[in-house]
């Protein structure tokens, strides 16, 4: 079971308290009906599914109930960092992580 740091509660808590909510930083169109089929497919179905660093959403379901984002290595399942929803995708990852950044 993973230990996940909730950036709102500022605590590491067991995975059982959390729900994974899929890939992060996928912007929802303000005009969904105007989206082309290609763009809707990209938004709704296509996922990067990286072997390496993933940016993903989690929800602290049985805690503060808030959504936040996390950076994790999908090979080791180690978390690199978590950050609050709405914050930009980190351009640099912390140096102390030994993780390989996905291409």
């Amino acid at each position: 079971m993973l230990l996940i740091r909730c950036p709102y509660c500022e605590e590491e808590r067991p995975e059982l308290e959390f729900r994974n909510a899929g890939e992060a930083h996928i912007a929802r169109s303000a005009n969904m009906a105007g989206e082309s089929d290609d763009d809707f497919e990209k938004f709704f179905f296509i996922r990067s599914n990286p072997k390496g660093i993933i940016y993903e959403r989690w929800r602290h379901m049985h805690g503060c109930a808030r959504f936040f984002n996390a950076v994790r290595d999908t090979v080791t399942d180690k978390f690199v960092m978590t950050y609050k929803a709405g914050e930009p995708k980190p351009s640099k990852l912390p140096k102390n992580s030994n993780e390989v950044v996905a291409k």
Partner: protein
Amino acid sequence: MKKYSVFAIAREAMRGHKGWEEQWSSPEPKKEYDVIIVGAGGHGLATAYYLATVHGITNVAVLEKGWLGGGNTGRNTTIIRSNYLYDESAGIYDHALKLWDGLSQELNYNVMYSARGVMMLAHNVHDVQVLKRHVHANRLNGIDNEWLTPEQAKEFCPPLNTSKDARYPVVGAALQRRGGTARHDAVAWGYARGASARGVHIIQNCEVTGVKRAANGAVTGVDTTRGFIGAKKVGVVAAGHSSVIMNMAGVRMPLESYPLQALVSEPVKPVVPCVVMSNTVHAYISQSDKGELVIGAGTDQYVSYSQTGGLHILQHTLDAICEMFPIFTRMKMLRSWGGIVDVTPDRSPILAKTPVPGLYVNCGWGTGGFKATPGSGHVFAHTIAKDDPHPINAPFTIERFRTGRLIDEAAAAAVAH
């Protein structure tokens, strides 16, 4: 290829078993092949086998980054059934089921297909409605599936708890008698032996690191840890890693990869005569010929390539097993493991041509690909050989996620996926 038979066993017994030959050869890779298959699991090897036997294409290499059959082929719970809801699924899964029947004879290799029946339990009104809908849909498609009362379910599987005061009482069940199990490793080995005997090169410990394309976009071959290998046709059959390989060719996929766990108990005498699945209490179980109870869990909730998973997932599954079979509460579990399954948004596979000329993909089998192995290889070989899908896999395109023509089998499995 020397044929296996009772006479071969007798002959070898007479001379100290010194005459058995290797089941498949391990040649050095050539510079170029007509077709490269990426992934020597059951589906990839079956594809190579049918390319050779049905289409006469033998200049084929099957590249495997690890060892043959060491991915999900060696990690699944070996269940075979075709009781899927939609016509498209019925077509492909029953095509496979028909090939299972007789596969041992065709391959001259005992894959131990045992049609012992797959029984899916209903615990509430909703389950009854869903399973009866499946029974009716299957029968309209010519697939056997029948409704059992709790008493009939108990008769079919005596250790099942059907008491009325169970927390989740069994109120009925759907039974597909042609469903069952097979020996997973033997399926990979049998197809490998058959393909190798016809000239297919099976190259293990050879990881694909890039997909090369010409100026016009068409595939020219693959980079591997053993150098560049050319081919005008490349079929990707890489299960959990399919999207990784497809990304090398510049194709983004509607796939996510999750750990899926399974476990086996200590071996005991025959006690579970069939396969039992329950969507509601969330578990499935069968017994191997070695006597181990083979138990399947659900997927973890996050994308991962770690071939492991959370302990709480196994615990949840064992809770369900003990609920269905109180007699197993004192059984010891021997081993657990995880495989990485590639899941599509509609829980149906993709077997199709891709936007890249010469590149084909067979992926997205999610939590239930083993049962489809022969049918999948058979129609995928057709797709590669003819550069056109077989009518059976024609609906399983990548484009369906743009057009919306989905094949929604999200209710098909017994566990969350």
